[in-house]
């Protein structure tokens, strides 16, 4: 199994969730994050002073999927989250040794 993690613009969360459901994904875990990448270096003026703001709020989404679905889920996220502007985020995939469902104690693909 794979764990697909996406760091996206917070206001694309709803679209990504809809895309995941359309892709047949059965569950998602969401949390808050902040980050910078190419977006770094944006300055802003506040109360008459200029600042460099480097950490921009992002949403993190994590999806556990079967090996076979990792690529298509990644594409689904990328296309739903894309606005074409800097700061759109990253999606990465990691191999998972085992998954357990807490409610039943099942393991492996059945637990997804």
């Amino acid at each position, binding site marked *: 199994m794979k764990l697909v993690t996406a760091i996206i613009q917070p206001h694309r969360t709803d679209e990504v969730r809809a895309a995941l459901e359309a892709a047949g994904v059965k569950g998602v875990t969401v949390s808050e994050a902040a980050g910078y990448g190419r977006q770094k270096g944006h300055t*802003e*003026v*506040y*109360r*008459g*002073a200029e*600042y460099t*703001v480097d950490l921009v709020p992002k949403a993190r989404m994590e999806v556990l999927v079967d090996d076979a679905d990792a690529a298509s889920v990644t594409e689904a996220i990328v296309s739903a989250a894309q606005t074409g502007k800097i700061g759109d985020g990253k999606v990465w995939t990691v191999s998972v040794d085992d998954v357990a469902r807490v409610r039943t104690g099942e393991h492996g693909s059945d637990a997804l």
Partner: protein
Amino acid sequence: MDSGNIAWLLTSASLVLLMTPGLAFFYGGMSRGKSVLNMMMMSFGAIAVGAVAWVLVGNSISVGESIGGLFGDPSTDFLLQSSFVSGDGEALIATGFGATFAIITVALISGSVADRMKFSAWMVFAFVWVILVYSPVSHWVWGGGILSDGGPIFSEDWFPQDFAGGTVVHINAGVAGLVLALLLGVRKGFGKVPMRPHNLPFVMLGAALLWFGWFGFNAGSAFAADDSAAAAWVNTTTAAAAAILGWLLTEKIRDGKATSLGAASGVVAGLVAITPAAVAVDPWGALLIGAFAGVFSALAVGLKFKFGYDDSLDVVGVHLVAGLWGTVAIGLFGTTTFGAWDGLLLGGGLGGLWAQIVAALVTIVYAAIATLIIGLAIKYTIGLRVSEEVEISGIDLAEHGETAYEEAK
């Protein structure tokens, strides 16, 4: 004894007492999440030591028997014994009203020392400053001292007007804030890291409570529920509203956006400026004083970055600048409807303007020197500033053993 006047003074004193917790929110919301409690504790601490200092000797120094026009004899009304035993309600509540002024004035200073002053040093400073700076200056202006109309400096025709505290409160606190900020030095990251307000609704709440309390401050300074009090109320509201517009327009033109911090700061700038002038001008004067107070302070809050003093929450930009503007503006817009003399623009000549400027200068010089001495004395005994480690990890936890918010769980 007039029950209507006592009713209004009881109400006014209660309103002004509420201003200091209002200030705690105005300043606390503006500070960072790791130092909001310390910021609020400086206000609550000012209430505690300010009231005690006032009851002990401050009231006597302010309105007691004058010693050379410089200060009142501290023994006149020690522990309010003579006021209390006399049993006169109007005199008694006036001492209470005076306590609330001493408290808010010293609390205002705390805005310039955010995130980095030892709490024990603050408590000592506040106690001493009320006795050695606030009380004498209030004696000069309101207690028959050297800046009063009967004083040695001014004539019968031309003397300073300070209805509710342009010099005594705002210029005084603004200068003290500047001196303390210079003594403490800048915060780590000053001018580089944004240090944005951690909770802007709290800033709005603070501004609202300050405005509400300011009705007691300004209209209560009539010491009666009379025509003057009504005039002060109307001018106060007019100036504060105009100052919001002045500040927001300045921001909109300069930065493209009108901020909520600007609206809240505009309220305070307008109120500061109209404080000395509350009955000295007509509504059109109040409108102009307020609008320009908003513009001037909106421009002035950026100066600290240019000159490199860390007046963290803009005590100088708001209280000193708007306090000076309001004090001087009486010399321009003053009118005798409820005021003492006509200003320059009403054909009264330069006499009033001169009196206002002299009173402001005397206050600035004394506040600067006296605050410097007190600050240095504390610096070289118990120390003024917390360690850099405390400053970075947060003064709330280090000085008060608390963090403001706990996760919901």
